């Protein structure tokens, strides 16, 4: 049963559900694995209804062991399945880190291209939900640093639906970083027409001339809001949604920076060693003669993610983004 109709309005979480359902309907090799994803529908209800619809051979409530979940998904993939694994929260992916970095990422290369790893690891990520420790992490850099992995970070319902489908269709392993604090933000989804934009491309979501602001996933509403606030002060920002974090779409970003001459990167992860640093270095190399200011970053501090009542000071917010924009324009 397909849920597709021309254009529907769905929260991000439900767009992912629809993407999973349609992928499972299209290909019976697709199966879901994870903790509490069966009758409960996952702690975020992303797999809600799928167990009833597809049964426990295809929607598997696993034992509570992340290394086991990802490790057995590798075996299933070798056997021709397309497992979609749910990690309950970002902070709980680390028991599976060995499997992800030494096995999932390297199997294709190890077998000289004979074995593909078409598996998807879905991770609700990011902070701002007032949670206890380990529920607000931004682990993208660990994975972006590991060759063999692809990373998608949808920020809208439409992307959430299509990236789910495209991640499952990919012959490479894909980590889907789902913006958990935006799960219930609604947006339009057109499930009938495949997007022209590849999932591996960035999108200019707001054209502008004075500076480029790059972000992804949960930070997108923030940077768009910042651009509106800046516009009120006469500053015209171009906003780019990176969408894919591995690979990063450098041509789109560089093209924008050559026009604006300035780049600000916003992410929740620590600035130190964050993905923004790699992007800043590449853009500095590629756009050196167009840059009118150093590439700046706004992000988390070099600290463990703080307790909930302090997280507002750790996370980038409107003022910190605008402060970054001011510093960028001072040059």
């Amino acid at each position: 049963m397909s849920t597709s109709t021309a254009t529907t309005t769905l929260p991000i979480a439900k767009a992912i559900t629809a993407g999973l359902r349609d992928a499972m309907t299209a290909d019976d090799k697709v199966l879901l694995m994870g903790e509490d994803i069966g009758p409960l529908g996952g702690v975020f209800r992303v797999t809600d209804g799928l167990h009833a619809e597809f049964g426990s051979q295809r929607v598997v409530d696993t034992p509570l062991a992340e290394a086991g979940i990802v490790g057995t998904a590798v075996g299933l993939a070798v056997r021709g399945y397309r497992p979609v694994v749910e990690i309950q929260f970002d902070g709980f992916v680390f028991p599976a880190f060995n499997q992800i970095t030494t096995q999932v990422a390297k199997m294709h290369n190890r077998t000289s291209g004979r074995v593909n790893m078409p598996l998807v690891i879905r991770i609700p990520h990011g902070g701002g939900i007032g949670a206890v420790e380990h529920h607000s992490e931004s682990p993208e850099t660990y994975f972006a640093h590991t060759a063999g992995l692809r990373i998608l970070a949808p920020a809208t319902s439409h992307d959430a639906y299509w990236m789910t489908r495209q991640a499952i269709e990919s012959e490479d392993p894909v980590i889907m970083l789902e913006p958990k604090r935006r799960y219930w933000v609604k947006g339009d989804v057109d499930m009938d027409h495949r997007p022209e934009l590849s999932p591996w491309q960035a999108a200019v979501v707001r054209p502008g001339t004075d500076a480029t602001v790059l972000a992804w996933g949960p930070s997108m509403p923030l940077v768009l809001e910042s651009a509106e606030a800046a516009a009120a002060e006469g500053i015209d920002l171009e906003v780019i949604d990176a969408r894919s974090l591995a690979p990063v779409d450098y041509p789109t970003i560089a093209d924008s920076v050559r026009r604006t001459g300035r780049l600000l990167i916003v992410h929740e992860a620590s600035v130190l060693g964050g993905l923004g640093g790699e992007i800043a270095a590449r853009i500095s190399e590629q756009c050196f003669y167009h840059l009118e200011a150093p590439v700046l970053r706004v992000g988390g501090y070099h600290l463990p993610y703080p307790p909930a009542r302090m997280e507002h000071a750790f996370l980038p917010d409107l003022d910190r983004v605008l402060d970054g924009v001011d510093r960028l324009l001072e040059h």
Partner: protein
Amino acid sequence: MSIFRSTIPDVATEEPMVQLLGPDGTRTPHEQLDAVLEEADLATPERLRGYYRDMVMIRAADLEATSLQRQGQLGLWASALGQEAAQIGAGHASREQDYLVPTYREHGVAWARGIEPWRLLEMFRGVSHGGWDPNELRTHPYMIVLGSQAPHAVGYAMGLQRDGVVGTGDAETDTAVLALFGDGASSEGEVSESFTFAASFQAPVVFYTQNNQWAISVPTSVQSRVPLAQRSRGWGIPSVRVDGNDVLAVLGAVRSALDSARAGKGPVFVESLTYRMAAHTTSDDASRYRPAAEEQEWAERDPILRLRRHLEQLGEIDEAFVARCDEEAHDLAMQLHHHIHGMEDPDPVHMFDHPYAEPHPIVDAEREEYLAYVAQFEDEEEGGR
């Protein structure tokens, strides 16, 4: 014959459960455990009343925490309702010098270790990641990444071996570690690795699982095809299953296991059969995955009621005592209520306080940057913006 068994029966589902108090409070004599309880005077009427009071207190604190969460004062609460005997019993089984390694739902254990409930609530409110001094209270911080604390427990026990405080025969000296984890967490690789290390090095550690039947929505049957107690036997770690709603069985079995570990006889595993009476946390809706009839069935095995019935049978409890406990519990709940409502949010600059033990230039620089950034707004405010 010891309650700690090393062999797996042919029919693996046949695992006896040690019980000293029946659901109606009737006491069954037990050679090994009665001796252990008597030796340390752990089952005198006065002690029994003490456990009763402890359980009533911690339940009241737990219920208050749930309502504080509903009032927006806590981000989350993980209730331990129904597990009071499994926790108060295990907590009191330890000696002061023992080191306890809990997960995040160990409120009764914490109470027995003298940790004030508001320190637990601090974490769930989101003002700290861990509210007490582990060395002072000999209790590890609450741990959230499932299973990750089990190897810490074994390592601490290996330290005890090197310190020569195991098997000396002196009750005040000999020390052991109590490692706690849930039935769900028992599937994590780190728990298996902990069994391996503990067995290989014969570390003085007791593994203690409260099998409360559910890991969020997943029943224990998904974690293990055999009674959990039997798991460790393949590692050569003797084990027992006890009735976790029976405070005396828990107390006796865990005390006996700790005694054995302290004496240098290596690790022991105790599975404590109980029930998570509330939802997984305040964010969970248990009606989505378990029948109300099951909850009802377990309500009849309520651990507090059971001990009270036993005390009544002994003629060692009266209305006045029960009323006094209820009153004290009410006072505790009120104290918690006011304490939490009055708790100020910490200045976020404190997030820079402890990432490292030694000075770190990047952290120092970011702290200055943060302070300068915040000061900018204060100046603006003073400037009358």
